[in-house]
């Protein structure tokens, strides 16, 4: 019989991230559909809080590889911990979140176990008694459904595709011994560099994604550019709505090439074919024209609206629910006023 292991790491504060809770739902559904046993494997500095957060998930066992050496995200120690948890569980199917820490380590773990891996799954279900999965290819241009016969089969699931699991309960995870050689400690994690609160414009948990296009830096009707004004309008809007900021490639490229720039934009903001495809319930794009392949930047945004002077805007036509044919400068200024009053 198949056995499903849910693999996760604790957050800084002790609990589990939303992405991990979503992956747990995927793992549970899978186990249920297969009539398989569910196991939980947790790693990190201190995992008891994380275990309790999901104690009610119905897993047959809770395994833990915890301790200060596993506290920070380092490939070698994470790989050793995950390998040990997988082996101890004896699971043929392993499900985890596709966050940065797990995405880095899982493929190596699959290699060590002699298994296979599929990442960034957007769907996972049971078909004809076997697991079946969906994921996107060619930078979100096409979606495939597939299955595989090899075991162990490791899978990471994208955030935003499953409901987050909610079911705390008291549990005492069973420690799993990890053999960590000195060679695993050649890398020392120095810390996290987070953008300061003012610059904090990427907010994965935000309700709304605001996508800015190169139009903000283009000559406007008066024949001049208004980049400083754009910078102020956008930042003001983000701070008032707590929206997350995305950008077209053109706009971040301009920012990198020494023209007058939107100072807080970096390549991390880029959405699209060679950028991110974030998931948010709503998205508002302004001054983007884009091109068919790059509009995948908001493929996973729920409701979409766009503002553009051009009614033929390629970023919106057939892709957005509403296109406002209007001057984004004026609209955003009014919007900020309304937000200030609200």
């Amino acid at each position: 019989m198949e056995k499903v292991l849910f693999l996760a790491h604790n957050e800084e504060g002790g609990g589990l991230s939303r992405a991990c809770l979503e992956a747990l739902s995927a793992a549970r559904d899978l186990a249920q559909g297969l009539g398989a046993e569910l196991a939980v494997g947790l790693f990190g500095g201190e995992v008891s809080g994380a275990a309790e957060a999901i104690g009610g998930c119905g897993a047959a066992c809770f395994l833990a590889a915890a301790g200060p050496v596993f506290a920070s995200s380092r490939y070698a120690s994470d790989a050793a911990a995950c390998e040990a948890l997988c082996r101890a569980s004896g699971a043929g199917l392993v499900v985890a979140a596709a966050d940065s820490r797990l995405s880095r380590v899982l493929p190596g773990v699959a290699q060590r176990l002699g298994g296979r891996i599929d990442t960034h799954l957007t769907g996972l279900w049971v078909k004809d008694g076997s697991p079946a999965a969906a994921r996107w290819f060619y930078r979100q241009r096409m979606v495939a459904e597939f299955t595989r016969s090899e075991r162990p089969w490791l899978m990471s699931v994208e955030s935003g595709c499953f409901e987050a699991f909610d079911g705390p309960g008291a549990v005492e995870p069973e420690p799993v011994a990890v053999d960590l050689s000195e060679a695993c400690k050649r890398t020392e994690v120095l810390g996290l560099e987070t953008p300061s609160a003012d610059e904090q414009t990427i907010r994965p948990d935000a309700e709304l994604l605001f996508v800015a296009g190169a139009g903000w830096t283009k000559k406007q009707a008066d024949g001049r550019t208004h980049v400083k004004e754009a910078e102020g309008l956008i930042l003001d809007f983000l701070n008032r709505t707590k929206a997350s900021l995305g950008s077209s490639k053109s706009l971040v490229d301009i920012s990198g090439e020494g023209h007058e720039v939107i100072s807080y934009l970096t390549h991390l903001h880029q959405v699209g074919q060679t950028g991110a495809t974030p998931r948010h319930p709503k998205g508002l794009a302004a001054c983007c024209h884009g091109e068919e392949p790059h509009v995948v930047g908001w493929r996973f945004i729920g409701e979409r609206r766009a503002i553009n002077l051009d009614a033929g805007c390629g970023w919106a036509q057939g892709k957005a629910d509403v296109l406002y044919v209007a001057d984004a400068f004026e609209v955003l200024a009014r919007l900020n006023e309304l937000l200030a009053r609200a």
Partner: protein
Amino acid sequence: MSASPGSRDQEMERQSMDADIVCVGFGPATAGFLTTLCRGLAEAGAAAESAVMPGMPPQVLCYERAEDIGFGVSGVVTRARGIRASFPDLDLSRIPMAAEVGSEKVVYLLDPVGASRRSPALRLIERLIPRGRKDHAFELPWIPSFLRKEPGLVLSLGQFCQWVGGQVMASGLAQIWPGVPVAGPLFADGRVSGVRLADQGVDRQGRPEAGHMPGMDLRAALTVVGDGPVGPVGRAIDERLGLPAGHHRREWAVGMKMVVDLPEDCPLEPGAVLHTLGYPEPEIFGFLYVYPENTASLGIFVPSWFDNPARTAYRYLQHWMLHPYLWRYLKGGRLRSWGAKSLQESGRAGEPFLVGDGYARIGEGSGSTNVLTGSGVDEAWTTGVQLAEAVLELMAEKRPFSAENLERTYVARRRASWVEAGARRAAKARDGFQRGVLSGLVGMALAGLSGGALNWPGRSRRPHERIPSLEDYCRGLIPAEDLAALRRECAAKGAALHDAVMDRLGWPEIPFDGRLLVSHQDALLLGGKVQAPAGYADHVVFKDPSVCAACGTRTCVEACSGQAITPGPEGGAPLFDREKCVHCGACLWNCSQADPDDPEASNIEFRAGAGGLHSAEN
């Protein structure tokens, strides 16, 4: 020595390198040259030795402006006489999108919407055409032999060039470098001594920026100029040496095309060839060639003698596709690719000095295109083959690439060949179009049927001498005050005038379907995949902004194939956006004003630039 445009890089060191042969551009002409040359070098083995790297085979380099070989634009139907001679065992299944010509038709299209401009004489003749056809067209019962392409091939120029280029490179005897615009020729001691590549790491005005790299100088015993109809290297040589007496380059056309996935139930067979005339304007000719797997290459030619100052190839292309005769085949189809390119239509009359000390010209830029048969690919290929044979001969004789030696070997071969015979027959075939469509058609028929002995004479005028004001063009159709209002509206929007004018002239709105009928911008993106790398200077430059400021007939804006030229602020030159430019070169001859210093030239300079189309199907 010609400096690369806009460079102010005295402080930076410019690299230079020596080669034996350097080629500019990789179109069919250079493809024919390199195919023949590499085969010859392989046969010669150690006997062919490099002068600059003794002990090695000759160093043969080719620089192509576009980001990959095969990003060119053409029809193509061809008799493929020269191509077949180079590939006697040609297996078409190895070249995607190739087929033998099956059926041929020439179709006269009547105007189903009543918006085109037809002369009274033409209207009269049209009345004689059998009525009652619901597809508003008339298939010519007989195709004159000079227009026939059977037995021939339909090809995709892009796929053909990729196929040839792959073999040339795999031979290891020549290198083809895409993404490298050649800025201009180098002259030393009265001879062409090589080429200079375009500067990189510069701003739009050509001023050094981060990552500045002055374009390298390549010195070579022979420079092969195959840069096509609007190539800046060929034109720089012409500027320096002039054209042979009596020659000029005043006739042009822009060809705009699409590659289309035909609807599933389309009855057209691979190899079917359709040529149209009569619509959307009598001056505009069209073509539709069917490839295997239910795809087609189709498009129109808008000539320089079509005296409409708001001549927009894109809008006309859509009306042409929507003609009932064609639309019954195209409806439900899907756009795969799109592109545009100029054609040098002066033919033999535009032939430059074919050779000089250290250089030779091949292909359309050398006047090889046959303007009577509308055929350029096979002619270009063949001139390349002829030059390669000449070069191999001179190498074997260990003689220098002097004007005299090239004349004796290359030019002599060319003069004795079918290319020359065809060019002579065609030389005056199109002169009649200088007077009007009817005289043009009659002239073509006369020249074609008499083997060039007869023609309809017409004095050739420079494009800027022909272009009337919009007011003149619309006289009697749009009142002056309405036209003034349209001008104001479009200026406020920063838009070109042609759509407003055509709407006003009764052209119906295009029913965009998001598949085949898409906006011009979407054709650029979905079809042409147009993009431009950063770090290069603008290659379209308005020479004297004050001439533009005073120019009331901004044909450059109207005719731009990529909507890359826009009106700009009042009182200045138009704006140019290199990220939308498809390098068709139409702006070069679609300017209504003369260069203040050169009556033969216009107020636009068209230089070597990077980027453009990224489709290998056109």
